[in-house]
């Protein structure tokens, strides 16, 4: 379990990335969503021990993250996929995973090789495992990143934008893989893609400008948007009122159907619809902005 209390992080130049975040994350899959610059990556880097908080307490799997020995203990139980993963271009995918496995403490050669082969198959890289990483596509590199995070069977998995750069099929596959893994451990998924969270996470937190706006189940966030989501059909060239946030647009033969969130949709064609998680998220953001 992870417990974060009144966490603050201020970078040089008085840039306040986190402003008193308090969170409890239990076993299972946890979604962390929020706009760019909300502080998601900073929070994840603190949880992985890469950054030190300016103030506040962080306890990961029973270890206090301000202590260096505890930090090392957490790192040995951790799998982390950074948002921008750097790889050694001269190594092959197999070699890179072997290298990371050694650094994770999997020193028995036989066990290491077996684990690497299994993970390469799991992420669909078995056929290209011996190609140098500099010749691999962005999606393939991302999959190598996911495989390295899973090395050593970590109890805590932290993945920052894992599906960025993946094609839709790969995205679904990865999403399912993470959901399967979550049964036995804690998985923290940070993403911009709300659909990924709605399909996999049992709990989520919405972070905005370094503060937690929401922390509950995805259903709870959806519930908040009840009565605030509509479809409005307009002739081409016309736009919904500025007070409404457009979620999606569907072009029909002679008109355009908008899905909107807002306080009130006074347009005659407005039809209330059942909200989904994306609506809930946008409604929350809209409320926070106002």
């Amino acid at each position, binding site marked *: 379990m992870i417990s974060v209390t009144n966490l603050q992080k201020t970078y040089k130049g008085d840039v306040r990335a986190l402003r008193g975040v308090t969170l409890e994350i239990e076993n299972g899959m946890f979604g962390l969503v929020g706009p760019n610059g909300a502080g998601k990556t900073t929070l994840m880097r603190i949880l992985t021990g890469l950054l030190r*908080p300016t103030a506040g307490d962080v306890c990961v799997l029973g270890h206090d993250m301000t202590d260096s020995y505890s930090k090392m203990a957490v790192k040995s139980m951790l799998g982390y996929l950074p948002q921008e993963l750097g790889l050694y271009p001269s*190594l092959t995918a197999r*070699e890179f995973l072997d290298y*990371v496995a*050694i*650094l*994770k403490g999997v*020193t028995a050669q036989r066990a290491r090789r077996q684990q690497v082969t299994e993970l390469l198959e799991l992420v669909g890289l078995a056929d290209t495992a011996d190609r140098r990483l500099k010749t691999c596509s962005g999606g393939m590199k991302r999959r190598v990143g996911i495989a390295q995070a899973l090395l050593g069977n970590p109890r805590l998995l932290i993945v920052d934008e894992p599906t960025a750069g993946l094609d839709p099929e790969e995205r679904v596959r990865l999403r399912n893989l993470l959901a399967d893994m979550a049964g036995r451990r804690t998985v923290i998924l940070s993403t911009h893609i709300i659909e990924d969270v709605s399909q996999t996470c049992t709990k989520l937190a919405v972070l905005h400008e370094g503060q937690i706006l929401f922390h509950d189940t995805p259903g709870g966030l959806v519930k908040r948007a009840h009565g605030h989501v509509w479809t409005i059909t307009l002739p081409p060239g016309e736009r919904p009122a500025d007070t409404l946030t457009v979620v999606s647009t569907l072009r029909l033969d002679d008109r355009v159907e908008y899905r909107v969130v807002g306080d009130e949709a006074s347009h005659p064609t407005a039809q209330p619809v059942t909200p989904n998680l994306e609506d809930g998220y946008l409604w929350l953001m809209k409320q926070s902005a106002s």
Partner: protein
Amino acid sequence: MRLGQLIGIVCYEASMHWRRRGVLMLAFFFAAALVLVGLLHHVTLEAHPKLAELRENMPQISKIMASSTVIQSVWPVALMFSILAIPPVLSDTIPKDRQMGVCTLLGSLPLDRATYLAGKLLGTWASLLVMLTGVALVFGTTMLLILGPYSLSVYLTTWIIGVLPVVFFTSGMSVLLAAGQPNRRRAVFVGIAFIVLCIAMLVTTTGSAKDIISLTRPTHLIVLQFEQMHHLAVDLAQELPESESDIAMGPSPTEDLRALGMKPSPAQIPLTIAVGIVQVGLVWLIVWGWMRWKENIG
């Protein structure tokens, strides 16, 4: 520090150095320069009419002269190579991890800074050891074909006690001094600054005891090379007929150095190696401390 992790970093670091071709290029140019200088020495000696005649009749003289040629070729090239070529090529060993973004991943692994730093340094040295072995073999074989047999013990001493420590110290210093740089470009600048420092130390060499702290290890150059040359000259003088003994290179180059006010002594060789190890160790400790401090302030 975990041994398994350390061995893993050393193996992969050495392998990556070779694959990036930096070390391969160094090996090629080092070997080419050695062969070129060796050939020049050989041509110069061949032009000596008396020596050519004596060598025809006395194979032992030929071996001594070949040994002398080999030593005189290796020393200047190795020194220039370790000062001018190694620092800019290897100084980015650690900063490139930062530039490529691998550091973020490494920071999330149960890997302490000491193991990482030691692994990077030893991995670089491992790749250089392979390179030096290859160059020594290529040059040695080429010279064997051109000059004929020469003293293997003199040749190996030159490489193992002479070239290897000098190359290890300059490469180690380059890697460590540039470790804090954020990118490869800045690291190369540090490498160039290190070259300037080495040249300044080299030109201020006095042959006195203070030379043992010089990063370019001039004591090696002065003492080891001159001692080797002296022994070869003595051997040569013994082999030559009395009428031709003026061909041998004076009574002792070491004596000549003493006459110039320098005080070289063979005891300075282990001392300068020990001082070099302490210097690299100290810089390693400073860099490790700095990395830990950076980690702690987050």
